[in-house]
């Protein structure tokens, strides 16, 4: 039986989905995490501790482990492990992205530079050092613009600015967020980039030998005009025209090639403009949160099962996405505070088309609104006969949910 090495950060939503996918794929499983497991001694081949934050340090540990328990595939789909996965794959001679390519993709400045060099449409941008006395000067491309940290995810610290005054305030605010998150100025600067108007979409794809296979295109039907950019609805199939989707696929492929990404999951965010798609981000991982639950392929494979099979070397033609309209609403924080309870779950689940409501925040958890926050308190899933129907169900269900915070 093949052995799969699963890199799971202790702070993840993905554990149940990945364990279920592993069980379905019939593999021996080794779970690697950045913390020692308290039960590792009960199953020596089942656990491994790896320092995800120092990817190169994972190499000798994996080499030693694989000498005792040969590994046939490696997978990790959270942001915090993607660089470690690349190092592990290189060390084991498994097909994957080179670590440098993954590191570039995770760095918004370096990835923008690569995209520009490859003539892939992306926002105009300027990099500013935190210590630069002119760090809040008006950008050459003018306003509206977006201030963006280099490595944070989930739109944390991303702020639209429309004039010099709001730019100065946003830079101070983003600096505070980065310092709070990184415990230091690990990110030595930030980006200011042109705001690209137009509908936003997400391309979910799988790279196989440098070829991008588009698994699906998600529309984000709620306008994302700022000043902050927390997500709301993802719905598929996309209502864009076939020709627009072909264009999205071409631009996404070009973006992956520009960054040197050749293998594994990618989640690409783009804006659709009158002059074609503009790449906002290329993430060398699958869609996050619980959102992958929207997707089913072929006879009902989950996205995680598809990715596990790929990690184990399966290069058979990919099954089509199950033909149905489906979507997910990421719940907003609504002001924030210490969560006491969520009201209206049963009523939300009773809305036609709603498949389930998953509240992932727990009572007592402190939730922060964007741009400081980055945690969605829950997810609502819906299916229907059309994307518009799904969208309506998601809005109707969400309207019935209320987050109650401690006084």
């Amino acid at each position, binding site marked *: 039986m093949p052995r799969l090495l699963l890199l799971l950060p202790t702070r993840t939503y993905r554990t149940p989905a990945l364990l279920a996918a592993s069980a379905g794929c019939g593999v021996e499983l080794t779970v690697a995490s950045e913390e020692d497991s*308290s039960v590792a001694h009960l199953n020596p081949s089942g656990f491994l501790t790896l320092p995800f934050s120092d990817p190169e340090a994972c190499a000798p540990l994996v080499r030693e482990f694989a000498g005792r328990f040969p590994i046939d595939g490696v997978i990790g789909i959270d942001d915090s492990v993607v660089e470690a996965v690349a190092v592990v794959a290189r060390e084991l001679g498994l097909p994957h992205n080179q670590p440098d390519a993954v590191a570039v993709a995770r760095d918004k400045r370096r990835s923008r530079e690569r995209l520009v060099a490859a003539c892939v449409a992306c926002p105009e941008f300027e990099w500013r050092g935190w210590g630069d006395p002119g760090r809040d000067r008006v950008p050459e491309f003018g306003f509206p613009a977006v201030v963006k940290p280099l490595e944070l995810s989930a739109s944390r610290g991303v702020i639209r600015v429309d004039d010099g005054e709001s730019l100065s305030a946003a830079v101070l605010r983003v600096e505070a967020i980065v310092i709070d998150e990184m415990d230091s100025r690990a990110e030595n600067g930030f980006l200011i980039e042109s705001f690209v108007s137009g509908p936003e979409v997400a391309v979910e794809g799988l790279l196989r030998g440098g070829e991008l296979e588009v698994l699906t295109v998600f529309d984000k039907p709620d306008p994302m005009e700022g000043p902050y950019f927390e997500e709301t609805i993802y719905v598929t199939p996309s209502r864009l025209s076939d020709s627009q989707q072909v264009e999205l696929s071409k631009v996404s492929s070009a973006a992956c090639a520009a960054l040197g990404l050749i293998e594994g999951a990618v989640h690409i965010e783009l804006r659709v403009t009158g002059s074609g798609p503009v790449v906002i981000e290329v993430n060398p991982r699958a869609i996050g*949160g619980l959102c992958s639950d929207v997707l089913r392929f072929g006879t009902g494979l989950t996205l995680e099962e598809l990715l596990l099979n790929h990690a184990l070397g399966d290069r058979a033609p990919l099954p089509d996405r*199950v033909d149905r309209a489906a979507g997910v609403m990421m719940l907003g924080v609504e002001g924030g505070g210490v969560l006491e309870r969520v009201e209206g779950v049963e009523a939300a689940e009773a809305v036609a088309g709603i498949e389930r409501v998953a509240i992932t925040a727990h009572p007592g958890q402190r939730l922060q609104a964007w741009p400081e926050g*980055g945690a969605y308190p829950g997810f609502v899933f819906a299916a229907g006969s059309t994307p518009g129907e799904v969208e309506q169900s998601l809005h109707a269900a969400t309207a019935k949910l209320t987050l109650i915070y401690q006084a």
Partner: protein
Amino acid sequence: MTDDIQINGEPMTVPTMCRFTVDRPLYPDQSFHFGSSEAAEMSPLAGRLFAIEGVAGVLITDNRVTVTKHGPATWPEVGKQVGAAIREHVASGEPAVDSSVRDSIPPVDELRDRIQGILDREINPSVASHGGVVRLLEVKENMVYVQMGGGCQGCGMADVTLKQGVEIAIRSEIPEVGEIMDTTDHASGDNPYYSPSKK
């Protein structure tokens, strides 16, 4: 007549599972889990359910049948077939589970003592180093109900601890054990690690 049999389907928090409650006992005061069609050979009811496309697991407990499915079919579609299979089974008069299956299971008291011994000896001393504890709540037939507490409750790695550690330790020593159910309400735990993020 089987048309008067009332069956209520209730989707569970795990989207691949649905519990069907029947208005009469199917396997009185007993339970058994079947993880494959091969394992279901000794259960006429589970055999009927595994004949439905997509059914991947069947847990029969007293008057409840919990079905795990894979595949694109929706629960309303599968549920109709599950209901028909249950009605057909009741009409057949066959036992839900052949008595020979029961005979292979050690007595509940023995199972409970042996599992508690594994928890005390091999698991809890280690889990305690992370501030956690795994409690044995109940053993019914060969079904084991555990609850994770302290640092384990709400931990993002609780599933890994259970599947990769606790289950393997118990099964390697007592292979007759059926499903091991985590009854913990992880949503109200302290969440020492778990931190939702990212879309």
